[in-house]
C-alpha cells in the first residue's frame, strides 16, 4: 500500500513537474544566412530567459524535415509549436494533426497557405512592405535625390515574398517623387557573388554608372557585393552613389562605418519574444489573438554604424 502510494506520488510529481515548465518545439528553416542564425539564437536566448524548455529542430531548408519535426513534437506532447516555414504550401495535414492533439501552433517569419485559419494561433512576421517604404523614405530625404535621381535596383530571388513586398513598399514611396526613377532592375538572388556580378554589368550598361544616384538592394548581401563592383568601376559607393538596403547584417555595418554604404533597415530577428508572448497568453486562456502580428526593424545610418558593428560582431 505504502509503496503503491509512493510510486503514485512520484508519478504525479513527475507529471506535474513536466507540466510546470512549458515545453515549446521550434521548427526552424535552417541556418542558410547570418540573419537566420541570429533569429535562431534570439529564440533560444528568449526561451532561456523565460524558463521555457525549447526543443529546437533545424530542417536544413527542407519542408519534409520540418513536417517530421512537427510530428515528433506532437508525439512528445509539447505545450506549443513554433514553425518558421520553408515554403508556404503543404501545411494543412500536419497542422490538423497538431490541432487534434490540442497543441497551439504559432507561425513565424514566412507565411503558410491554409484554408482554415483556426489551424494556427497567429502569424508573426516582419513587415516587408514597411521595410521598403522606410528605405525609400530615407533615400528621398537625401539632398542627392532632390533633383533627377536614377536608381539601380537589385532584386531578391524571383518570387520570394521579401523581394516582392520590399519592391512594393519602395515603389509606393517612389511614386510620390517624380524626379526619382528606377532605371535598371535585375535579380541578384540575395547573394553577394551575384550582387557583384550583376552590378558590374548594370554599371557598364549605364555608361559606367554616370548619372546613377543610388543603389537599392533587397538585402545587405547583394549590396555588399555591389559595393565591390562600384569600387572596381572607379566610383565611390556611399558618396557618388548612395547605397541603401535591408537586413542589417554585421558586415554591412562595417561597410557603413567605412563610408561605403549609407543606410539599412533592420530585418527584425527578434521574433522569439512576441511568439512566446502569444503562446504564454494562449496557455493562460487567451484564444482570440489577431491572426497576423507585424514587427518592423529600425533604420540604421552611418553615424551609429561603428558602435553597432562592435556590438553585433561579438554576438
Amino acid at each position: 500500500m505504502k509503496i503503491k502510494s509512493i510510486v503514485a506520488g512520484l508519478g504525479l510529481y513527475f507529471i506535474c513537474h513536466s507540466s510546470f515548465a512549458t515545453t515549446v518545439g521550434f521548427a526552424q528553416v535552417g541556418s542558410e544566412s547570418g540573419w537566420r542564425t541570429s533569429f535562431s539564437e534570439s529564440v533560444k536566448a528568449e526561451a532561456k530567459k523565460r524558463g521555457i524548455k525549447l526543443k529546437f529542430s533545424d530542417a536544413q531548408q527542407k519542408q519534409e524535415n520540418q513536417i517530421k519535426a512537427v510530428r515528433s513534437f506532437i508525439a512528445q506532447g509539447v505545450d506549443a509549436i513554433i514553425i518558421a516555414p520553408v515554403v508556404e504550401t503543404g501545411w494543412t495535414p500536419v497542422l490538423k494533426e497538431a490541432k487534434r492533439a490540442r497543441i497551439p501552433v504559432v507561425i513565424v517569419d514566412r507565411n503558410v497557405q491554409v484554408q482554415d485559419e483556426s489551424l494556427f494561433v497567429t502569424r508573426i512576421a516582419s513587415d516587408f512592405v514597411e521595410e521598403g517604404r522606410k528605405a525609400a523614405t530615407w533615400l528621398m530625404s537625401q539632398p542627392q535625390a532632390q533633383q533627377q535621381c536614377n536608381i539601380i535596383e537589385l532584386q531578391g530571388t524571383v518570387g520570394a515574398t521579401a523581394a516582392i513586398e520590399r519592391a512594393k513598399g519602395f515603389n509606393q514611396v517612389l511614386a510620390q517623387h517624380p524626379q526619382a526613377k528606377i532605371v535598371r532592375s535585375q535579380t541578384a538572388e540575395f547573394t553577394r557573388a551575384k550582387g557583384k556580378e550583376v552590378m558590374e554589368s548594370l554599371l557598364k550598361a549605364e555608361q559606367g554608372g554616370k548619372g546613377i544616384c543610388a543603389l537599392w538592394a533587397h538585402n545587405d548581401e547583394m549590396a555588399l557585393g555591389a559595393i565591390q563592383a562600384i569600387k572596381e568601376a572607379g566610383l565611390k559607393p556611399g558618396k557618388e552613389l548612395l547605397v541603401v538596403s535591408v537586413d542589417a547584417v554585421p558586415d554591412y555595418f562595417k561597410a557603413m562605418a567605412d563610408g561605403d554604404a549609407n543606410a539599412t533597415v533592420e530585418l527584425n530577428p527578434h521574433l522569439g519574444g512576441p511568439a512566446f508572448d502569444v503562446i504564454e497568453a494562449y496557455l493562460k486562456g487567451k484564444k482570440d489573438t489577431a491572426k497576423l502580428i507585424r514587427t518592423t526593424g529600425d533604420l540604421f545610418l552611418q553615424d551609429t554604424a561603428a558602435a553597432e558593428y562592435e556590438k553585433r560582431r561579438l554576438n
Partner: protein
Amino acid sequence: MTNEGVVVDQTHQDQSKADQLKAARQARYSPGQSAHQFSLYLYPLVALALLLLVNLLLDPQFFSLQWQDGRLYGPLIDIVNRSAPVALLAIGMSLVIATGGIDLSVGAVMAICGAVCANLLVLGDWSIPAVIGLAVLTGLACGLVNGFMVSYLGIQPIVATLVLMVAGRGVAQLLNQGQIVTFQNPDFAALGSGSFLALPVPVWLVLLALLMMQLLLRRTALGLFIEAVGCNAKASRYLGIDDRGIKLTVYLLAGGCAALAGIIATADIQGSDANNAGLWLELDAILAVVIGGAALTGGRFSLPRAVIGVLIIQALSTTIVVSGLPSKFNLLIKALVILLVLMLQSELFRNQLKTLFSFGKLRGGKA
C-alpha cells in the same frame, strides 16, 4: 592490296605489309581530331558571336575596352572573368564525362574549399601559398572520395557524387558555423579581383589550367586512355589499361579544378558563403561540356570547346542582365537559347532543317 599480276611472293608480302602499316596509320585514332572538326567548332562559335552581337545591339558600348587601374576594363573582359569558375569546373567535368561518369559534387567542393580558405585566413597567419595549397589538397581529397566510390566500390557516378553534393555543402556550413565568413586580405583577394598583364587573374588561372591539362592529356596517352575507358571500360581493361586508376584520376583532377574555382569565387567576394558558393554551378559545367559537343555517354571530349560552351552561358547571362527585361524571364530566355544552341549542334536537326528548306524551294520552283 596491290593488284599487279605477276609478282614474286616475297615482294608481294612486303608490299602488303607496308600497305597494312599505312592503312593502320591512317586508321589510327588521332586524339581530339575528327573528320568534321571544323563544324564542331563552327556552331558554338557562331552561337557565341550571335550572342555578342545581340549585346552590341542592346548596348552600343559593349565592345569598348578601356585601360583602367592597370588593366583592361569592359563588358567583354567581364564575361571572360565571370566565366572563370565555371570554366575550371567544365575542364574537370569534361574529363569525368569522357569516362562516362558525371560529377555532381563540384559545386559543393567549391564551397568546401572556399570555406577552408576563408577560415584559414581568419584564424591565423597562414601564407597565401599555404592557404591555396591546403584548399587544393582539400579539393583533391574530395575528388579522391568520389573517385574511390566510383572506381573501386563500383557505385554509379551520379549516386556517388550526389553524396558529396549534399554532404559537402553541409561540411562547408559546419566549417563556417552557419555564417558567411569574411576576411580582409588584399593579397588573397587579388586571386579573384586582381589583374596581371592587363587581364584579370582568374582568366590567367583558367588559361594556365587549360594549357596544362591540354598538354597532359594530348601530349601523353592519358587523354586517349580516358576516351578508351569512356568508350568501353571492360575492353580497355583487357587491353591493359588500368580503367579504375584512370577513373580515379579524372575525379581527382575534377576535384582539383573545383578547388581552384572555389578559391577564385571566395577571393572575388572576399568571403565564403557556404550556402551559395558554387550553387548549381555543376549543372552549368555539365551544360557547357554538352554545348562543347561531348557525349554524356563518354568516349570523347574537348577542353577548348567546353570553355567556349562556358563563354556562351556567361555571355547569355550578361545579355539577360543588360537587356533590361524583368527578372522573371531570365530562366525562360536562358532555356530557349540553350535549346537553340544544342539543336544547331545536332547534325540530325541541321539535316532536317535543310530538307525543310529544300522542300520549300521545290514548291517555290513549281509555283
